[in-house]
């Protein structure tokens, strides 16, 4: 069982590293999904099967899908990000290294074994609707707020795009094109 933990941990770390370093966006997202699966396995080894399942369903399933949709929607293939020299990593790497060293140093003072007992879905749901019932309601309200915000922002984005393209169309008709569009009709697509 502990071997499984260390393998999954290694996979998770490696995948996360690749997420952060890939140039291509979709590859990065897929590596992120791999990392989430690895973490789900780690949850399982830690005796939290319910959470592992959730991780796979909600995190990898739902949130990652959102990411992929977004990438597709924004049609990023055309604008590949400029090459960032690897030296850009030095600063953050140093800062993060120091942070990691401090945390690890703090943690390695003395080790405490895990309880070993598995905490199943029933225990979690009892706790969930026991003392944490209020928190659950709050969580749901949070999700509702996010929903409203996301639709509002995204919707506005949609309107502007259409309004902007309509505006440009009228300008073209009257011949007062802007410097970048000297009155020639531009085919739709990404602005």
């Amino acid at each position, binding site marked *: 069982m502990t071997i499984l933990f260390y393998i999954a941990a290694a996979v998770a770390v490696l995948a996360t590293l690749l997420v952060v370093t890939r140039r291509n966006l979709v590859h990065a997202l897929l590596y992120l999904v791999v990392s989430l699966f690895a973490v789900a396995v780690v949850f399982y080894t830690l005796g939290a099967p319910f959470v592992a399942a959730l991780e796979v369903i909600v995190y990898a399933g739902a949130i990652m899908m959102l990411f992929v949709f977004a990438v597709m929607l924004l049609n990023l293939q055309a604008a590949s990000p400029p090459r960032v020299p690897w030296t850009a990593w030095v*600063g953050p790497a140093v*800062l993060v290294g*120091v*942070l990691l060293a*401090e945390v690890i*140093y703090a943690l390695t003072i003395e080790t405490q074994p895990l309880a070993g007992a598995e905490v199943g879905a029933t225990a979690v749901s009892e706790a969930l609707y026991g003392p944490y019932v209020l928190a659950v309601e709050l969580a749901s309200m949070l999700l509702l707020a996010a929903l409203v915000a996301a639709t509002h922002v995204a919707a506005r984005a949609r309107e502007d795009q259409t309004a902007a393209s309509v505006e440009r169309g009228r300008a073209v008709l009257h011949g007062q094109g802007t410097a970048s569009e000297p009155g020639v009709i531009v085919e739709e697509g990404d602005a």
Partner: protein
Amino acid sequence: MLSLLWLIPALPAAGFVLLVLLNRRLGRAGAAWIGAGSVGLSMLAALLVCGSFIVSPPAGDACRQVLWTWMDVAGFTPAIGFYLDAVSVVWVLVITVVGFLIHLYSTEHMEHDEGFTRFFTYLNLFVFSMLVLVLADNLLLLYLGWEGVGLCSYLLIAFWQKDPQNVYSGRKAFIVTRVGDTALIAGLFLLLTQLGTLEIQPLLRAAEQTWAPDSTVAVVAALLILGGAVGKSAQVPLQTWLPDAMAGPSPVSALIHAATMVTAGVYLIARTTPLFELAGDARLAVALVGIVTLLIAGFSALVQHDLKRALAYSTISQIGYMILALGVSGWEAGVFHFGTHAFFKALLFLGAGVVIEALAGEHDIFKMGGLARKLPAVFVTFTVGAAALAALPFVTNGFYSKDLVISTTLGTADGNVWLYVGSILGAFVTTLYSFRLVWVVFFGEAHTEVTRRPRWRQTMPLWVLAVFSIITGFLWLPAWIGAFHPLEDFLDTALPPIEWTGRYAHFAESAGAAFVIILIVYGGIFLSYLLWVPWRRGTHAFAASPVVRPLAAFWLGGWGFDWLYERVFVRPVKWFAHWARHDLVDYVVDGIAWVNLAGWRTLSAGQTGRLRSYVAVAGFGVVLVLAVVVLR
């Protein structure tokens, strides 16, 4: 008749006020009448009052007239009051008589000047201030006159104010005298604090009673008064302003810088004799100032090219004689020399004025020459004046007064041989430079044409002054000639008589001392004739020789005092003023504002607007906190 005393200064004051108010509406004639008229009336009043004072002296040989209390603060009650005694009679008579003659002379001399009314306005204000100075019954009122004459000398030196150089000379005069006045006002504070009053007679009596002879406070007070006198009477070290004061019109030089204002210092010391009698060291200081000044000024006068500057240095020298006399407690000798000097020096300056005007403003004596035939009247009167200056024996008043002064330097208790030798040398040099002027200006071939002839209003004053330069000498014949010395008896009522108690007193009073002076004077006249008539070219060559030329230049510049003061006093102040003109403290205040701005600029640079830098800073914060938690 004494009750008319207040009228003497009041008339010129009235003249001044009238001239100021009616300035525009008065023509030249009107201004002349008011200007000269007011001083003339003042002269009449002075003659009446002083006449009755001399004929029937009031009780206590002095009369005090209080107009109103000037101020009454914490027991200090100076009054606007006039005090007349023998000393002030001499001064008042000289001021008014010489003053009136000079006013008459100016009506013609300044005829073509567009500031005619303004000239007489200032002149009247001057006469008023001078009369207040000599008649004041307390030192504060004296100080009012003192500064008033300083102001008028500034206004009149800078009269032709179109030329900045004249204005500079006026400013220089006022500032240098003001330095002296600071010493005087400090003296006033000391006297007020120590003795409680500034009224001269009670002050002197209180000083005699409360101060021990040669006590430090007496010496300090006397020295401060000497400081004031040195400033106003252009003695070393504050004499640099008088030669530059010649920038003013000639009547101004005659009245202010020869006859009256420059002798204010002599009057002040004469008036406060009891103080100086208490302070032996101060008297020594006075004598030293006198002897040093008379020698320095004498030698400087010897090399001057400008006619009026030569006369200015001679004035400094002659006042040096008066101060020397006061220094050796020959008070009356100083006053007598003042009297005689006023007449012949005014005569010389007026003569110089006519000469300069005749030669269309030519000042350099070596460009004059041969004027004896062209301006006979001026020649005769100028020569009489020069003779009096040189102390031509028996005939001129200068002889009697200078002989008395020189003998006091030997005869009195304070006198000593060095002072005597110095004054003899001074007399010799005086003879040289006075007759040098006569030979160079009136003899030899003419260099510039005579364009204007003086009319009666200029020549008459010259003749009157010439006559005075002769007869006033007979007021005090030396002991070995005759016992006729009415002036001495008259002055004894106010000043302590001269005690001939020095080691060589017998010789000083005898004909022997007089014979020495007669020898010196004749020798000087003959030598100057030789140097400047037959051997003139030789003299010029000698003066231009490499050895003598720097010395002559040094003397020409007034022994380098101007050069020294420019570097020691004027430049540092000018430099500091220029350096601090934007107010050093303002830099501090603006500095505070700048610090705030700098702080704002550096902090706002931190706001790069990029999210990643903020997160990095947050991360850095976490690292720090963890470090503290972990490491502690």
